[in-house]
């Protein structure tokens, strides 16, 4: 049964800072008290373009981390790739600009009740929400190892401080410009065996999530993945962001990635049926 994120609130929130980090922008937004309700995996829906814009839809961004102890009050950090019209607009907004946003939205990564070994896998800027998650898992006593991958080195997002909470971090690029030449999924089976990994957390492009599921299906490993499907509303009313997911009874339903996701059980998502008539 679908569970709405009961903490979702609409608010006007000012940008605290906007810095370029490689190919991405790190945008910090003052969201006040709701920062305490944002969990790793949740996302935010932001109105873009200003009042008279021809962009009528909100844009969804993963919340990469929140802070409740800074001098400005509660803040959220977003790592944004300026690739579309809406994200380009957001990346062009400076300190003090007030954003209309709705957060926190969607499901969060589940945290194991026992301190078990976990592996975090990020593709491109999909790695951003994994650092906050790593800190949380680390504080619960989990051994955290991380794999980051991208087509090329400049698309790897790996802040220096991100290494604090992880036991190891390995980088893979398809063109070999950073770390090991190859795909981020190449070493996963080996790592599962070596470290006795209990849970894999992933965030990145759909083909990467599908490839990880293929590997985890061979082992007794839970795969929690944050999916990315284009959304019109982010709050569950438009029905555009659906993915085919297996139900308890074995039937398949088109579930909304904004409400039943973005964090989903990778083993239940029917990757081969994405974009197909079910």
């Amino acid at each position: 049964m679908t569970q709405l994120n009961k903490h979702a609130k609409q608010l006007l929130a000012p940008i605290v800072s906007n810095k370029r980090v490689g190919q991405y922008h790190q945008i910090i937004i003052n969201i006040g008290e709701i920062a305490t309700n944002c969990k790793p995996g949740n996302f935010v829906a932001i109105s873009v373009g200003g009042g008279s814009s021809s962009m009528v839809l909100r844009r969804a961004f993963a919340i990469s981390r929140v802070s409740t102890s800074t001098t400005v009050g509660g803040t959220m950090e977003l790592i944004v790739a300026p690739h579309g019209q809406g994200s380009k607009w957001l990346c062009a907004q400076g300190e003090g600009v007030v954003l209309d946003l709705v957060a926190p939205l969607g499901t969060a990564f589940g945290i194991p009740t026992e301190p078990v070994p976990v592996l975090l896998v990020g593709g491109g800027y999909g790695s951003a929400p994994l650092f906050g998650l790593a800190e949380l898992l680390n504080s619960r006593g989990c051994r955290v190892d991380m794999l980051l991958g991208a087509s090329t080195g400049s698309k790897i997002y790996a802040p220096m401080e991100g290494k604090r909470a992880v036991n190891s971090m390995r980088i893979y690029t398809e063109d070999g410009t950073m770390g090991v030449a190859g795909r981020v999924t190449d070493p996963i089976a080996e790592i599962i065996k070596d470290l006795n990994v209990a849970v894999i957390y992933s965030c990145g492009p759909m083909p990467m999530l599908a490839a990880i599921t293929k590997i985890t299906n061979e082992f007794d490993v839970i795969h929690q993945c944050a999916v990315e499907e284009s959304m019109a509303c982010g709050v569950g009313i438009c029905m555009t962001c659906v993915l085919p997911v297996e139900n308890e009874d074995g039937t398949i339903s088109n579930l909304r990635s904004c409400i039943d996701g973005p964090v989903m059980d990778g083993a239940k998502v029917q990757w081969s049926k994405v974009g197909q008539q079910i």
Partner: protein
Amino acid sequence: MTALDFSTTIGNAWFPAPTFTASGCASSGRELAQFFPLREMGGVVTKSVMSKMRPGRPTPRMAETPSGMLNSIGLQGPGIDAFLAKDVPYLVEQKARVIVSIAGETVEEYSTLARKLRSVSGISAIEVNISCPNVENRGLVFACDPEASRRVIDGVRRTIGGELPIIAKLSPDVTDLVSIAKGVVDAGADGLALINTVLGMVINVDTMRPHLGGKTGGLSGPAIRPIAVRAVYQVHAALPQIPILGMGGVASGKDALEMILAGASGVSIGTASFGNPTAIMAIQDELKQLLIDRGFTSLKQAVGFAHRPIEAE
């Protein structure tokens, strides 16, 4: 303080405000209820429900376009039985006024759905969606054919009897909207919902193929508002006694007022809610103020005002 009677009626159904969700833009209602109490708007028009569970079309289902969007959902839904068991009781419990929207593939399916609604309590009206553009067979868009439109409404009217108001939802993708409107009113429709989305397409220039999984989709948002205003104006001119729910790109109180002046007795808000979950509340407040500013003491005085000749000053 100026008193304003903001209420509206469609057939024998009374609503305290003229603001509604557009069908297919509020899911089950629970999603919007996170942001404001559903009873505070005129009413909820539910997502068009069919006899059986329906998975809808494959993704991508959405493409943003200038001042609008294309959707290609394909009437995904739980089917009438699950809908009546779960969604209607929830809306009634929230004290929302409920207009249930139904869609069928055959004239018989519409009648079957109407039969199931006949004894359900807490429903204010039925919207008969004969104009969803996202079906495989364009021949099934009943609203493109005057005779088929008439048969569907006639079947629903006979099945539910004279009690519940019937609102026929029509498509702007026709040559003569007024004749189709007259046909469904003759067949027993008490009101009209104008307009459904406009059939459109986006081609992805990278893949060089249609972007949407369903290839075509329905265009909504401010981009289609002038089409909707024109449709409401033309139909109101021909059928001034028939209440119209006006919709198509209403995103502000000013847009809502435009619909009312064209001849709508109420407005439905769809795409604007996608961009802003509290849009309906804002539109409602703005519309109220705009009516007061213009000296109206009731919404009804403003309905169709644009048709009046300009009096000598």
